C-alpha cells in the first residue's frame, strides 16, 4: 500500500525547498534580468555549509574529536545520531545558526560574484554563473573534509529527537514552509514597491534606467545578495532533510529544473514560480512510484521524466506563452488613480 501521508510530506518538503529556489529565480532572472544559470551553485553552497555546521560544529560542541572521528566516517555518523536524538536544544540551536550562516555567506558570495559578472555583457552572465556552479562542484569533489566524491552522511534532521518519523517530518515541513512564506512575502513586497518598478525598468532597458539615475550594478548586486542568501537557506534545508550531501546532488540539471518551474509558472510572478514548483516536484515524486512498477511496464521508466517535463512545458507555453501567471501592475496605484480621476470629474 502507498503511504499517503508520507508521500504528501515528502512531496511538500521538496516543493517548499524548490519553491524557495523558484521564487528567488523569478526575482533575479524574471524580474531583475540577471540570467542565473548557476542557481545550483548557491543551493549547493548552502547545502554544504549546512552540512558542515550541523556535523562538525555539533560534534565539536559535544566534545567529540572531529580529527579522529570526522563526520564522513562511520564513527562520526554514529556519534551524530547519538547527539541528535539525545540533545534537542543543541541540535535545534546549531541548526538555526546554520540557517543564518548559510543566508549570510551564500548571500555575500552572490554579492561578490556580481562584481565580475554584471559587468560582462548580459548574454554572458548566465554562462559565467553556470561555470561557477561547475567549479564549486569540482571543489567539493576534491575536498576531503567534506567527504570528496562520497560526500557526507548523517547530517541530523533537527527534529529527529521527536522519535516519530512522521511527526519530525511534519515539523520540518512546517519550518520549511515558513521559510518559503518569508521568501514569498519579501519577493512580493519588493515587486509591488518602487524598487520592483525600478528592477523591471532595468530589465527592460538598462541604459535608459542608467540615464534615469539608477545605479544598475549596485541595485542588481543587492538583489542578488538577497536571492542568493535565500537559495543558500534552501540548500541547508535540503541537506538536513535528506541527511546527506554529495557533489552529484548539485549538477546543473538542478538549475534547469528550477528554470522549468518558472517558465511553466510565469517567470515574472512569484505565485507562478510556486505553482511551477508544485507541478514539477509532484512529477518528480510520482516518477519513483511509476518506476517501482518497472516489471509491468512495456518501456523503461528512466525516460519518463524529460518526456513529462517537456510535454508540460510545450502544452503550457502554447496556451500561455508567458507562463501560467503573468505580471500585473501594483493594485494600489490603480485605486489611487481612479480616486483622482473621480475627483477631477
Amino acid at each position, binding site marked *: 500500500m502507498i503511504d499517503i501521508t508520507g508521500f504528501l510530506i515528502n512531496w511538500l518538503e521538496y516543493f517548499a525547498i524548490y519553491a524557495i529556489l523558484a521564487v528567488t529565480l523569478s526575482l533575479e532572472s524574471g524580474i531583475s534580468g540577471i540570467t542565473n544559470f548557476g542557481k545550483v551553485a548557491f543551493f549547493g553552497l548552502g547545502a554544504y555549509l549546512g552540512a558542515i555546521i550541523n556535523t562538525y560544529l555539533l560534534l565539536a560542541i559535544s566534545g567529540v574529536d572531529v580529527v579522529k572521528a570526522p563526520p564522513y566516517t562511520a564513527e562520526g555518523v554514529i556519534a551524530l545520531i547519538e547527539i541528535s536524538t539525545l540533545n534537542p536544544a543543541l541540535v535545534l540551536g546549531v541548526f538555526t545558526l546554520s540557517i543564518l550562516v548559510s543566508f549570510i555567506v551564500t548571500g555575500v558570495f552572490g554579492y561578490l560574484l556580481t562584481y565580475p559578472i554584471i559587468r560582462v555583457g548580459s548574454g554572458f552572465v548566465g554562462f559565467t554563473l553556470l561555470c561557477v556552479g561547475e567549479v564549486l562542484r569540482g571543489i567539493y569533489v576534491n575536498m576531503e573534509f567534506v567527504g570528496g566524491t562520497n560526500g557526507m552522511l548523517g547530517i541530523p534532521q533537527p527534529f529527529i529527537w521527536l522519535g516519530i518519523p512522521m511527526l519530525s517530518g511534519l515539523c520540518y515541513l512546517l519550518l520549511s514552509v515558513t521559510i518559503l512564506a518569508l521568501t514569498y512575502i519579501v519577493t512580493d513586497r519588493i515587486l509591488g514597491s518602487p524598487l520592483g518598478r525600478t528592477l523591471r525598468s532595468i530589465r527592460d*532597458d538598462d541604459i535608459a534606467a542608467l540615464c534615469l*539615475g539608477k545605479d544598475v550594478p549596485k541595485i542588481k548586486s543587492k538583489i542578488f545578495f538577497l536571492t542568493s542568501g535565500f537559495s543558500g537557506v534552501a540548500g541547508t534545508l535540503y541537506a538536513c532533510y535528506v541527511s546527506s550531501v554529495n557533489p552529484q546532488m548539485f549538477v546543473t540539471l538542478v538549475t534547469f529544473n528550477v528554470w522549468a518551474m518558472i517558465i511553466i509558472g510565469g517567470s515574472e510572478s512569484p505565485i507562478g514560480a510556486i505553482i511551477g514548483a508544485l507541478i514539477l516536484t509532484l512529477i518528480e515524486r510520482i516518477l519513483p512510484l511509476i518506476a517501482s512498477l518497472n516489471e509491468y511496464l512495456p518501456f523503461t521508466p528512466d525516460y519518463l521524466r524529460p518526456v513529462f517535463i517537456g510535454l508540460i512545458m510545450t502544452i503550457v507555453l502554447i496556451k500561455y506563452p508567458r507562463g501560467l501567471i503573468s505580471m500585473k501592475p501594483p493594485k494600489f496605484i490603480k485605486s489611487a488613480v481612479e480616486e483622482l480621476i473621480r475627483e*477631477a470629474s
Partner: protein
Amino acid sequence: MSKEVRHILATRNVSKYFEGVKVLEKVSITIPEGGIIGLIGPNGSGKTTLFNIITGFHVPSEGEVLYRASNEFIRIDGLNPHEIYRLRIVRTFQLPRLFHSLTVIENLLVTPVGQRGESILNAVRWRTWLEEEKNLVKKALGILAMFNKLEIAFKYPAQLSVADIKLVETLRGLMANARLYLLDEPLAGLDFATARRLLNFIKEIRNSYNVTFIIIEHRIDLLMETVDYVYVLHNGRLLASGKPDEVIQNPDVVKAYVGE
C-alpha cells in the same frame, strides 16, 4: 549676455570622433541658468551627440564639460550617466526608450531618483514609502491630466500612438526634479495644439523653478517662439548663436538648412 548671468553648463572645445570620423569639432557653448536654449542644425550635425556627451553617454575625444554643481564649476565629462543624473541633469531620448513592461504611469513614476521605496529594507515595509508614492502618483496624474491623457495612464507603450510615446518620453523626463533638462526633439510627431501645450508647460516649469532647458528641435517655427537663445550646429561645428530672430536671419544658417 550680460556679466551678472550665472551659467549652469559650459562645454569647452568639445570634439568627438567615431572611429576617426569627426562628428563634433571644438564646440563651446555656455548655458545661462534659468534659460530655455535651442540647439538646432540639419540632420547629422551632431546635436544628439552633444547631448550624449553632456549626459555621460559618450566621453569627449577632446575638451571638457563644466557644470555648476553648487557654487563652483565641476568637470562632468567622464562621469557615468547615473552620476550625472544625480547632479540633476536629465535627458530625454530622440528615439523614445520607454520601459515596455511598465504602464505609462509607472514609466513616469520610475523617474524620480532616490525614492524611499527603492531600498530593499524599505521596499518590504510599504508604510515607509506609501506617502511619497502617493504624492508622486498625484504629480504624474496631474501632468497627464494637463495634456488630457489620463486615459493612457494604464496603457503599455506598445498600445500607444507614436505621438503619445514621444510625449510620454518627454513627460517622463519632466517628472524628475532636475536643474537642467536636455530634451531631444520633444515636439517630433506632436499635433500643433499638444506641441504648444508642451512648450507652455516647459515655460511654466522654468518660471516656477528657475530650471534650465536645452531643446533640440527641427520644428524651428515653434521653437523660436519659446527659446531665449539659440545655438546652431552644422557638420559638427558651431555655425552661429544668438537670439532667435538674429539666428533666423543669419545667411549662414539659412544656407546650412536650405543648401547652396
